């Protein structure tokens, strides 16, 4: 079966989604990321791996955090980085997505980092290109693979062995590409107990098929967990029909110190950011000793460096 992300030698050519990637590919990315983590301790944090390469950040959805970390990652690999603010450009003049891509490729882009509101947009771009690599920085509700990888990295850093873990993903799983990527990463890496916790209206109906247990009872959902991943509750949801209000959400599903105490004593607390304090997570927990939220950001740079370095290292033959 042909995976469009892999070249004919099984090497990674694009990173579009974690789903379908072999376990060895994920482990390779995590191991490579570890090498890059140690770089941030040096004064010169740059290495010449992507020297002469141009990385184009194509963000069709607004983002500061993800775009910035991709930019930092590319620059630490000595790449040239071009940030494209698509709202104010040809998209609004009616240019098609692929025409935009062709124009940028003609400017000698080597790598595209793409965030788009439509699921599948990065796949479309990847199929269209013969020479360049594509990294999905988030497409619709579908996938955010580098986030899934950095979350897996953070968990591995603290807990070492996936095969013994209980991981609870709490919040709006229905609309979350972060949750989907995390689920694929965790199950592929051998996590036996992956849980989705949230209101019935925000849990997809077929999660069991991915090997995930669903809980609408927060206390039961986080009990004895090693990892609690809280998801951001998007403003639109809080206004819409799926939830009564932000306060109601916090009452039932906010991660408070009391609920955290139901998990294992050394459980870690994660959040992809940006946080809504007092909605999905209590400040005391977000700023507390079990929170690894800021570490996720640091590891995110190393993981993105690893992905770019692996994609760039496939050689000319690898783009076939």
């Amino acid at each position: 079966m042909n995976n469009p992300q892999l070249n004919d030698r099984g090497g990674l050519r694009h990173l579009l989604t974690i789903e379908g990637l072999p376990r060895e590919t994920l482990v390779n990315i995590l191991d490579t990321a570890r090498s890059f983590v140690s770089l941030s301790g040096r004064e010169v944090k740059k290495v010449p791996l992507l020297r002469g390469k141009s990385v184009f950040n194509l963000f069709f959805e607004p983002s500061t955090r993800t775009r910035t970390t991709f930019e930092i990652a590319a620059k630490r690999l000595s790449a040239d980085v071009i940030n494209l603010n698509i709202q104010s450009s040809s998209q609004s003049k009616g240019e098609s997505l692929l025409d935009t891509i062709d124009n940028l490729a003609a400017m000698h882009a080597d790598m595209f980092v793409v965030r788009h509101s439509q699921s599948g947009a990065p796949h479309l771009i990847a199929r269209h290109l013969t020479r360049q690599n594509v990294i999905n920085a988030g497409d619709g509700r579908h996938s955010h693979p580098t986030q899934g990888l950095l979350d897996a990295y953070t968990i591995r850093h603290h807990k070492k062995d996936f095969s013994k873990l209980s991981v609870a993903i709490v919040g709006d799983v229905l609309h979350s590409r972060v949750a989907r990527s995390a689920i694929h990463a965790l199950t592929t890496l051998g996590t036996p107990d992956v849980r989705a916790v949230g209101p019935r209206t925000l849990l997809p109906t077929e999660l069991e098929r991915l090997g995930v247990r669903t809980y609408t009872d927060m206390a039961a959902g986080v009990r004895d967990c090693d990892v609690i991943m809280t998801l951001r509750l998007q403003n639109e949801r809080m206004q819409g029909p799926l939830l009564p209000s932000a306060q109601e959400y916090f009452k039932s599903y906010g991660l408070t110190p009391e609920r955290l105490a139901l998990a294992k004593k050394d459980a870690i607390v994660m959040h992809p950011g940006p946080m809504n304090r007092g909605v999905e997570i209590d400040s005391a927990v977000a700023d507390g000793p079990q929170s690894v939220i800021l570490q996720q950001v640091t590891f995110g740079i190393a993981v993105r460096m690893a992905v770019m370095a692996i994609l760039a290292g496939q050689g000319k033959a690898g783009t076939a």
Partner: protein
Amino acid sequence: MSAPQSDNKVSLHDVEALFETLLGQLKPRVSHAAGMVGIVTGGVWLAERLHAALGLRAPLGMLDVSFYRDDVGEKGIKPQVSPSQIPFDVDGRDILLVDDVLFTGRTVRAAMNELFDYGRPARIDLVVLADRGGRELPIEPLYCGGRVDVPKGSILMLDRDPRGVMSMSLSSRRRQRGEGA
């Protein structure tokens, strides 16, 4: 100094002879203020012994040049990269750059590039246990244990057993240290 035999296994005796030759060259000429840097992995093992034998004041540095290699585009990067550490100030320092085997010179080029990311050394002198010829860059050692003839296509590697005893072996492919030949 005579070159050791070009058997498949350069014996332990020969490796120690190369080491003694090398040490003999270094002892009268090296300043105690010099900074020694070994190139991972074989260069570090060699450097550990030289560093101890020479009594250098600055602690031993190590470089993993994986990110600076010029063949990353073809070969890709290996996932296990050790963190480079230079625990002394490079600016204005006399540096002894140590590797086990000198071949094309590309590893040394990568090491120098990486070293210059840490500062501006006063000088860099190259120290190698074995020179197998085959240079592709204008790089020569100042201190060299001896020349070794290696069949084309083979890789000469320094090994170290759990007791710390060094030996050299030939193999047809680059393998991770710790695997069999």
